[in-house]
């Protein structure tokens, strides 16, 4: 982190009458106490800022979560739309959206680790499984061989974050020793060992090929599997699960975004970009990498717990490399080191097969049975793979990059450069 002598700041600030000039210096220094305690507390006149959304008059403003009013309005609009959506969509589409949101939670966690801190992990499904089984044991019903304590979902969700986090803490020192693809395959090893453990531990997981149900969604004493009425509004079970996922996603995504702009987030980025340089600047490598690991594991745990509830039943085999690759796809397609990108990426990966399903029957040479040239299902899968390839070749920075380009185009219109 850069520290600039405060007196030089003060001099600039005193001399500067112009908002733009002040903004540029505050952007440079960041830590200027003078700006914060000065007469205007870094605030420019409204008349000066109107119509100039990117005019920041303080570091706080520049690094705020939603630093332009356009972003604020868009976020508000998006959240409102997503709040209303389940009341309007069919049950299966809101289920699909819930799955997408859960995958987004896991993706945000993975992005903290892979995107921000630069540690590639293929072991994320292992932590999701930990969360799922923690949730199932704490808030699930006992069966003939599986245990379940039937506590409230709120306790289960907290523990589903804490226990994977703790395991992440144990594993992290191991993982911090290796880098790059070595780490990727090391975490894949973790996934394989975990699968073996889960298959063996039938009293928790139900055993291989059979599995067990997830947590029972009783939140704060309210059974979410019943329908509730709020005034004229009926909240069906799938809607309340959707709202639960949405709430957690929003809270966790905002928390991640907030973390990314903090000192810790900058430490993550420093470690990612050149870890030795980061160490020289005083970033504690072990601590930073461990923190990234623990946080992302906790995110994965929460996602796993919700995932098991949504899917209904989870078996040890399903936390496999394919799921790891799906998560990685969410992060990369959405855009590495962007939270909003991850949200779009999750929607892309989860919803694209459904969109292809609608499109495929319109394409030639397809049949439902296996007699024809290619079945509609094979075509869907091939298109899914091909679209990933095409997309990454054309837009390597992910969906966020695409959005960024569109935004820049309109922001600078009519001057395209």
């Amino acid at each position, binding site marked *: 982190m850069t520290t600039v002598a405060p007196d030089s700041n003060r001099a600039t600030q005193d001399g500067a009458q112009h908002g733009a000039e002040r903004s540029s210096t505050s952007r440079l220094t960041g830590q200027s106490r003078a700006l914060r305690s000065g007469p205007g507390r870094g605030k420019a006149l409204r008349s000066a800022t109107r119509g100039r959304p990117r005019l920041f008059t303080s570091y706080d403003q520049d690094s705020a979560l939603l630093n332009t009013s356009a972003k604020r309005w868009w976020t508000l609009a998006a959240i409102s739309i997503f709040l209303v959506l389940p009341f309007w969509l069919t049950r299966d589409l809101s289920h699909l959206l819930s799955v997408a949101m859960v995958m987004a939670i896991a993706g945000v966690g993975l992005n903290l680790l892979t995107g921000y801190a630069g540690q590639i992990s293929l072991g994320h499904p292992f932590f999701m499984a930990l969360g799922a089984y923690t949730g199932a044991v704490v808030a699930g019903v006992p069966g003939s061989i599986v245990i379940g304590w039937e506590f409230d979902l709120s306790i289960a969700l907290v523990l589903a974050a804490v226990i994977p986090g703790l395991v992440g803490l144990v594993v992290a020192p191991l993982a911090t020793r290796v880098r790059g693809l*070595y780490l990727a395959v090391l975490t894949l090893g973790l996934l394989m060992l975990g699968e*073996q453990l889960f298959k063996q531990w039938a009293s928790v997981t139900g055993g291989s090929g059979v599995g067990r149900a997830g947590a029972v969604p009783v939140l704060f004493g309210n059974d979410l599997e019943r329908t509730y009425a709020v005034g004229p509004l009926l909240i069906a079970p799938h809607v309340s699960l959707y709202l639960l996922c949405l709430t957690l996603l929003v809270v966790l995504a905002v928390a991640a975004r907030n973390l990314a702009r903090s000192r810790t987030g900058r430490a993550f980025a420093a470690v990612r970009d*050149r870890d030795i340089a980061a160490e*020289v600047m005083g970033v504690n490598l072990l601590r930073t990498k461990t923190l990234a690991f623990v946080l992302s594991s906790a995110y994965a745990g929460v996602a796993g717990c919700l995932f098991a509830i949504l899917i209904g039943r989870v078996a040890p085999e399903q936390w496999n490399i394919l799921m790891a690759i799906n998560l990685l796809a969410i992060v990369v397609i959405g855009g590495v080191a962007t939270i909003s990108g991850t949200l779009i990426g999750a929607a892309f990966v989860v919803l694209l097969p459904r969109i292809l399903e609608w499109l495929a029957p319109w394409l030639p040479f397809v049949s439902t049975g296996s007699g024809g040239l290619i079945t509609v299902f094979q075509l869907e899968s091939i298109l899914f793979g091909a679209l990933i390839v095409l997309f990454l070749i054309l837009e390597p920075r992910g969906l966020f990059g695409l959005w960024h380009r569109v935004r820049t185009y309109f922001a600078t219109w009519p001057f395209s450069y």
Partner: protein
Amino acid sequence: MATVASTLLAGLGDGAVYALIAVSFVIIFRATGVLNFAQPGLLILGTYVTSVLAVDRGVPFWVAAVIAVLVVAAISMGIERVAIRPMIGRPVFSTALVTVGIFIVLLILAFRLFAARARTIADPWQLEQWCLVQGETLCAVSLYQHHAGKIAVVAVVLGLLGVWLSRSRVGLAMRATSLDQEAALAQGINVGRMFSLSWALGGGLAALGGILLAANGSVVQANDALFALVALPALILGGIDSLRGAVVGGLVIGLVSALSSTYQPIHAPWLGPNFENVAPYLVMILVLLIRPYGLFGTKEVQRL
């Protein structure tokens, strides 16, 4: 004693195939810095082409195998040209994910081609075996010809590959490219062609791996493609950019997996069934704890 010997021989036979597949990963990684997740697809296409030629068309096995390797090498080269070349200079994640996309496409293609059929490849070894130590009634230590054949084929192919890489002009150019692309370019090496060549080699070796996998006296189906991913611990154990490491890693993993499948159920049953599937990963993790770049991997030079 007899069991140990049989187990070690079987382990070496499987290990040879792991080594071959690990080498195919390494060659592609060294040239383009990509962990190629499409290898399983290339592997199973090699099996398929051999099967179609050798069984359905009656072409002699060796001819069929060579044709299959060439066909898959050409496909692999095509993939590099179309999908990987545009990704040069892009983040490693993105390129790896491109190969995942290709993997999905190739896998579905393989499923369509196999059309729910199991296939054989008419290999010359079948289920013949040599008896090395005669027991009282049965053979005490036997060696399946297909294990011996796998070891022999892999030894010859990798030996030739090693000589070619270290002696021939093109081989040296390939190594130079993998060391430093810009310097190689400055020396007049056509780096693009080297990329194509590496992918062709990697694809061809994967196809050969698929052919050897199928030479087990039994049948193969389309989802046997995923076998290629079993070589990942071998790859990391040896060091991701080392050919020697890949060979050693492959053999080690083959032995570890054979030994643990024979002895773990007897001596450590609490580890659960099928522990041999994860034993390679356990060994890999232990090795990485001591040597973070695998046994023979190049240490990344770290600069500020």
